[in-house]
């Protein structure tokens, strides 16, 4: 029951929200998100104490013909992502406060719908259900970007939509393919694991590629990433936050749950190449970030670098790598949303996010500069921030996979510092100019938000095992499954 509540709670608030006035709607949405957050926290906490509780499982028949069930389940892995979603969305909604947005009711409703879809993606234990939620998440975010986005939005958001849809259609193909090979024609994740493992190596490779296309586009991984910077820049702030903070985790999450364990042999054959691609996107994203003049675009590219590392860690399929990826998903979600909020604060006041036009803001707003710095350090992965734990574990995992690859992936340590500090310097340091003089101080609301982010960054930097412990067992199971299957084939 609890999982069902988790899923539908945000959407339940939509009609309520629509009843109220524009002004009130923000509060209602925040209440919705906070309620959902409480439920999310409660579920996460409950799961830690009593993971076998029946309330974490919801299974009803959905499409009898296809043997597809409406099966939601909270488990070690997705509880982290549900936690992330429920944690981030209140912040995202809060960030609309003090911003003048037309049609705010529609905007907030779309966000709440989006949340339901995202939670659905994470909770679904049935491949078809997963797919439906996956696509479902695309529509609200598309409308958010289309209706509320920047100048060039029509073309860019459309490219984003078609690009991601392109990938997911291949996923659909792969799902169908595996499904017709399941024993009793079932979409259940476990029968998928069973059926996928029995496919021939070649078939598994094809299924792998089809799945990979969908997930790699969503994440995005080089060279399928070009939709991302434009979309991030043109989407409204909250859209960017949703996209980068949560939505791309759909991809990385799916890698762990839906890709590798379903076709272990496919993974075995392709892992080398996909890890190289991931590492390329680490270096490439960082290099691209280094040359950007636009702050938001720089963040977009830096995000490519970070998620590339997450993907690489997952493909290593060892405990440290995958756990690091789990943790980095959470960290990256928090950090990137915080950074985009920082960007929003700046653009809201300065009407530009060209870094060369800025400078010296640190003179004007001290609190802002400090909080920005902490958030930035989280992203740079300084020890005792959340970013470090993930990055270290990821590098650790990659290292076990291959010692050469890790050196390239490790470049993120240097390049990350380089572009982030460059941005910080361009925006904050130096003397104020005519533009930045008028920056003023940040409002209480903004201060609270940033402080919460900073607090979260340090908190998760200090106590990573609150999260890591929860997912460890299940990740071990998946890794064992994958290695069992691949080992069996070696024996044959």
């Amino acid at each position, binding site marked *: 029951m609890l999982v069902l509540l988790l899923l539908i709670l945000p959407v339940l608030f939509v009609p309520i929200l629509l009843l109220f006035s524009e002004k009130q709607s923000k509060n209602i949405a925040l209440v919705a998100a906070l309620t959902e957050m409480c439920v999310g926290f409660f579920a996460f906490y409950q799961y830690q104490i009593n993971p076998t509780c029946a309330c974490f499982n919801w299974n009803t028949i*959905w*499409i*009898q*013909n*296809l043997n597809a069930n409406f099966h939601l389940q909270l488990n070690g892995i997705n509880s982290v992502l549900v936690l992330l979603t429920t944690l981030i969305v209140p912040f995202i909604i809060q960030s609309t406060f003090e911003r003048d947005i037309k049609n705010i009711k529609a905007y907030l409703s779309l966000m709440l719908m989006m949340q339901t879809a995202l939670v659905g993606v994470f909770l679904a234990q049935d491949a078809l259900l997963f*797919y*439906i939620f996956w*696509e*479902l998440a*695309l*529509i609200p975010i598309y*409308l958010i970007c*289309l*209706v509320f986005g920047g100048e060039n*939005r*029509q073309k860019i958001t*459309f490219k984003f*939509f*078609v690009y991601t*849809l*392109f990938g997911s*259609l*291949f996923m*659909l*193909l792969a799902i*169908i*393919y595996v*499904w*017709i090979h399941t024993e009793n024609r079932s979409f259940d994740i476990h029968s998928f694991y069973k059926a996928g493992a029995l496919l021939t190596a070649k078939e598994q490779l*094809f299924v792998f590629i089809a799945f990979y296309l969908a997930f790699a586009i969503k994440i995005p991984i080089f060279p399928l990433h070009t939709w991302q910077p434009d979309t991030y820049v043109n989407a409204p702030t909250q859209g960017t936050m949703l996209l980068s903070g949560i939505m791309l985790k759909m991809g990385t999450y799916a890698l762990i749950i839906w890709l590798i364990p379903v076709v272990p042999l496919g993974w075995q054959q392709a892992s080398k190449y996909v890890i190289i691609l991931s590492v390329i996107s680490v270096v490439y994203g960082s290099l691209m970030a280094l040359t950007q003049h636009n702050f938001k675009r720089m963040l977009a590219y830096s995000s490519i670098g970070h998620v590339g590392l997450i993907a690489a860690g997952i493909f290593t399929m060892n405990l440290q790598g995958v756990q690091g990826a789990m943790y980095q998903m959470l960290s990256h979600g928090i950090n990137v949303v915080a950074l985009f909020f920082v960007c929003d604060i700046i653009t809201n006041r300065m009407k530009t996010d060209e870094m060369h036009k800025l400078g010296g803001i640190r003179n004007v707003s001290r609190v802002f500069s400090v909080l920005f710095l902490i958030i930035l350090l989280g992203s740079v992965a300084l020890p005792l921030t959340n970013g470090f734990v993930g990055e270290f574990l990821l590098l650790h995992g990659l290292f076990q996979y291959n010692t050469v690859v890790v050196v390239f992936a490790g470049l993120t340590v240097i390049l990350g510092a380089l572009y982030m500090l460059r941005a910080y310097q361009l925006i904050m340091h130096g003397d104020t100019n005519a533009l930045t003089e008028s920056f003023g101080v940040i409002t209480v609301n903004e201060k609270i938000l940033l402080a919460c982010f900073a607090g979260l960054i340090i908190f998760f930097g200090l106590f990573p095992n609150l999260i890591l412990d929860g997912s460890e067992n299940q990740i071990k199971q998946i890794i064992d499954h994958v290695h069992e299957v691949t080992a069996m084939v070696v024996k044959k």
Partner: protein
Amino acid sequence: MKELLLLSGLGIFALLAEMINARKIIFPAVIAGLCLNIFFCLNDIMAGNNENIFNMLLLDKIPLVFTLLLSVLAIFWFVMAKNYFKDETNLSDHFALVLFSMVGVFLLTSYTHMSMLFLGVEILSIPVYVLAGSDKRNTYSNEAAFKYFLLGAFASGFLLLGITFVYGGTGSFNTLQIASSSVLGAGVSKQLLTIGLLLILFAMAFKVSAVPFHFWTPDVYTGAPTVVTAYMSTIVKLGALAGFYRLFSIVLVFDATTFTTTLIIISVLTIVVGNVIAASQSNTKRLLAFSSIGHAGFVLLANTMLSPSTPYVVWYYLTAYTLSSMAAFWVLIKLDNHDISAFNGLVKRNPLLAGTMTIALLSMAGIPPMAGFFAKYFVLLNTIQNKSVLIAVIAILASLIGVYYYFKIIIAIFSGKEINSAKIELSWLDKIGLVLISILIILLGVLPDACYNLLFR
């Protein structure tokens, strides 16, 4: 039998009503009659009645569910077209024509005899020729009717020729006998049979506007009055595709080797060409015409990839497509301007129209949770089950192009700068219809097997 009688009776009633000066009651009477028809169909389906009408028609489950769909669509269509007919002087003629062509649809869904096939096609087509030209002062409308008629005659010729060839080859008009004789029959001329079936195939392909017999479609769709276009792209299409299914699902069972390749070529071409050409259209009506070609391709593909679930797949696809198409045309009629720019900022002018259009387009684009998603899904499922992954990939890519042009409209609705900012008023009948059709599209998409359990089990 009673469904056939009811439909024909309604048509005759509409003609008579003109004479007895009861024009006002035509509309309610027709709606009531169609509701009754729905009831009949449901009743027969539930009871599991199998009615064999003189070895000409066989009313088992599948024709009945198609008729059910026909009746539902017809109700929607009449509600939609009500205003359009209001100004017409010969209102009852139009009603009668439409109802008669529905009889043709009914025949096409249920025939077991080749003569019924021919009759069905003609009964279906002739009223539509007239309807296409019903905007008498519009040269485009006239041209459309003319083209449709000429090319339609061409197709009818092929059909007749095909039927004779088949009869010559097998000595039978019964579809089942014809199909089975290709393996069983003694004294059967395989060549004649094959050529004959091919000719029938071409004629039917013309009716469903499959590539390369599709040339008439865009011109006729664009030229005909929009309500008629809506009628053609939903009900006529339903009839033609049902007729196609009726024959070739049996033919393929017995002689897959001969026809599968040809059918695959036709359906893939239809999917690809329809979608690709649609990508560069800026006239919504024409765009929908090409997109209807693409959808027909999907149904043909479903027809080709046989499996036990094929009837349901075909039926479901047709339901999803016709409902979405109906909704899209409904909005188009209300807008009364066929350029895509007419949709600019529609969400501000009338949210209901915008919402319905979006749902309809998303459904046609095949995006969950709309009905169109599962429609495409089932087709792909069958295709992959038949080990034709490559074809599935082509279909997927083509439908991706579909997304491109459907979203041109969605983008215009939500973020275009409106040319005309006047709000659009809707009658309550329109509102109910639009809401109902939207709900149906979503409901079908969320619970795709509800109908299966209800109708096919």
